[in-house]
């Protein structure tokens, strides 16, 4: 879900999820986002969100609404756009991970300081942990389906292991070890140690990690096992 991160003088005040079609901003308490500051008009602006797109509209405010330093009446919001209303800054974050290149202007609110009089330095830093970090959503979705491994050959045949940790190793230390990593986008297998690399569906793994699909057959240290998703 897209959101706005509101800050004042570089400190983050709150996060506003754009969870409904219209989110209004203004000084009056009837607004969804109330800013009690005389520079802010009673009904200052609104953000209209339709599917994946959000639009910012200035509602004829006295002091205007800026986006990335330029006054706007209507504006299609892009991730990392910096909206300014009075002294307040609202950074727009689109759904999902932000693109690589953050707008330079948007870094303003995340700057940090060295605590020393006379020197204020811009330092890209981390805003306080937000309750709904974008990465947390796919992780939560992945949590509903649990992945597991079932041994299909050798003395341990039939044994099942649920993959609950971020990292799960398979194999024999000193001989051959592989690791399955749990990531927001799924499960990946990578080689850890040993001269032999794991085999997935008959193909030997390269140095790169490989994403596992339901019912993939993995072979490590001569033991075959099946990777599958369990539905709870």
């Amino acid at each position, binding site marked *: 879900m897209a959101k706005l991160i509101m800050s004042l003088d570089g400190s*983050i005040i709150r996060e506003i999820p754009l969870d409904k079609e219209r989110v209004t901003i203004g000084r009056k308490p009837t607004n969804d986002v109330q800013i009690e500051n005389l520079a802010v008009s009673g009904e200052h602006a609104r953000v209209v969100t339709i599917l994946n797109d959000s639009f910012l509209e200035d509602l004829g405010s006295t002091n205007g609404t800026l986006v990335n330093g330029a006054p706007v009446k209507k504006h299609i919001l892009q991730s990392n756009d910096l909206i300014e209303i009075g002294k307040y800054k609202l950074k727009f974050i689109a759904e999902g991970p932000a693109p690589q290149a953050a707008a330079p202007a948007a870094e303003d609110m995340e700057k940090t300081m060295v605590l020393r009089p006379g020197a204020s330095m811009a330092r890209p830093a981390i805003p306080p*942990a937000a309750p709904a970090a974008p*990465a947390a959503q796919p992780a939560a979705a992945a949590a509903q389906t649990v992945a597991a491994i079932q041994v299909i050959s050798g003395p341990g045949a039939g044994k099942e292991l649920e993959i609950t940790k971020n990292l799960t190793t398979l194999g024999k230390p000193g001989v051959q070890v592989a690791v399955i990593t749990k*990531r927001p986008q799924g499960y990946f297998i990578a080689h*850890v140690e040993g001269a032999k690399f794991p085999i997935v569906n008959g193909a030997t793994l390269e140095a790169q990690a490989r994403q596992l699909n339901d019912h993939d057959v993995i072979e490590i240290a001569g033991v075959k096992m099946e990777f599958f998703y369990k539905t709870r």
Partner: protein
Amino acid sequence: MPDLSSILEIASATHPGMVRGHNEDSIAADAEVGLAVLADGMGGYNAGEVASGIAVALISSEIRKMLANHDAAPFTASEIERIIAEHAGKANAAIYHAAQGNPQYSGMGTTLVMACWHDNQVAVGHIGDSRLYRLRGGTFEQVTRDHSVLQEQIDSGMITREQARHAQHKNLVTRAVGIDPQVETEVRTYPVQADDIYLLCSDGLPDMVADEDIQLTLATLKANLPLAAEQLVQQANDNGGRDNVSVILVRVLKAFPARAGVLQKLKSWLK
């Protein structure tokens, strides 16, 4: 100086993260002389990269030269500590003067963490909130203590560690390289054991990945250090990657007393 390349296994990784356009972290590591340096720059435009780059290049090349060309009796622990503080001071002066001379670099600075392994010990120097951790057996510990407002608040009992995780001002450092004409480097020496794993990292790692997850990664993947380094960076990015993230991992394969080096030299000379 004894060659430590058969004693120390080193792997590193650095990444701009998922939000930042560029990487202001700089890293360097050299197993032969047993030196690792990591800096996390700050300052507008590209000044952060310039500051961290100056610090890492100057410190790693000068200390390397000094250690590699040193044939006399091995440096003592206090001599190594002095060398670390001296070079952090040189980096401070270089960055400070570069900032004074170039308006676009005005106010640039960097945090710094560096470690030098010698004679079964490691000397650790740091300024700011870049950190050194150690995994020894089942114990994972933060060795350096941040020079930050948050750490000061924890120390004075104003807030608990748990509250600190969710605190504002996470990034307010109280000390940095290149901001003032002088800087005080905190340098300490710790005994080293075989199989220790050391982690030097910028704050982009601990801010995004919980200590338990870092520990699990190191313990699980220590047989493949490059994979462990990559995995740590990936976890930071999977969790949002809001900052640059850099890690240097150093695994101590066996003990390395300095005296053995002298003895061996004597033996080979007598042959």
